[in-house]
């Protein structure tokens, strides 16, 4: 199982942040700020610097940043939307479900990840009669998030067997 990554250090030191703030107030461009920082031995990654400058100038985050990446590089990384939320093992709770609103059974599935204790509690909560919503029947979430707010991911209902449809 992949090991949990250690907590990252902040990308910008307070000294660098203070310097950037001063330069931005003076109206200096990001290129020049980068050169000045480098000459002072405070150089940081350009991506981080641009994000900080954008934040200080009160501009919004750039939408669709991947469109600025060269095509063949872009293909190497899986788009964020297609990446799973958590790559480790999940405990799946699945079957058909129905709620008061939707009496017709629909295929539903919870996939929980997290520590053993949280997983146990989350699974027990799901077994006690909380089923995924009809609008979003396949839910992948951390066990703790589910425990904190179960009605965000599911609603009251019951788990049922495979429906026998008679026509």
């Amino acid at each position: 199982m992949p090991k949990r990554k250690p907590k990252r250090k902040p990308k910008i030191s307070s000294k660098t942040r203070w310097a950037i703030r001063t330069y931005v107030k003076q109206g200096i461009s990001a290129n020049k700020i980068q050169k000045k920082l480098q000459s002072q031995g405070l150089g940081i990654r350009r991506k981080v610097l641009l994000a900080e400058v954008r934040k200080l100038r009160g501009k919004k985050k750039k939408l669709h940043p991947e469109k600025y990446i060269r095509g063949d590089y872009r293909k190497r990384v899986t788009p964020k939307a297609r990446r799973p939320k958590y790559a480790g093992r999940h405990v799946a709770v699945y079957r058909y479900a129905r709620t008061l609103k939707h009496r017709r059974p629909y295929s539903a599935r919870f996939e929980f990840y997290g520590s053993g204790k949280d997983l146990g509690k989350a699974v027990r909560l799901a077994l006690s009669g909380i089923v995924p919503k009809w609008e979003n029947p396949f839910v992948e979430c951390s066990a703790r998030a589910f425990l904190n707010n179960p009605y965000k991911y599911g609603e009251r209902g019951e788990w049922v067997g495979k429906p026998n449809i008679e026509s």
Partner: protein
Amino acid sequence: MANQTLKAEPILGLTDRFTVKLDFDNFSFKSTRYWADLVMEKFRQKGYIMLKSSEKHYHVVFDRYVSWDENLSVIAWVAILSKSVPLHRYLAMQCIKMSSTLRVSPKGDKPSPRIVFRYGCQDHAIKDFLRYRKLIKRIVKEEVR
């Protein structure tokens, strides 16, 4: 048209992307072992365990961690060569979900799958699989009480 559904306990299973898991439906013990041995040889797996889920239904879990692409490649290779329709269906379902799942809890009349055969190294993916299986079984046991 009428829907007849009975209240039932949900099924608990184990899902991940990096362990090769195969679901053999309508396979004898011998033929399941044959395919598991073949996969071990072809895909350089270190070991495997076989679990019997019900009569003529077996699960196989392999020990070496693989990428999702390789995982699908193994399942597809077995499905095509064995010409097994349920295995094709299993492959399609795993592709849709983008992760592979095996059942751990009981399902209706079927008991939870039990280990019937072990072969080779069991220290990596199988060890983790069994650890999570134990956790799920404990939850099921407490729920029954």
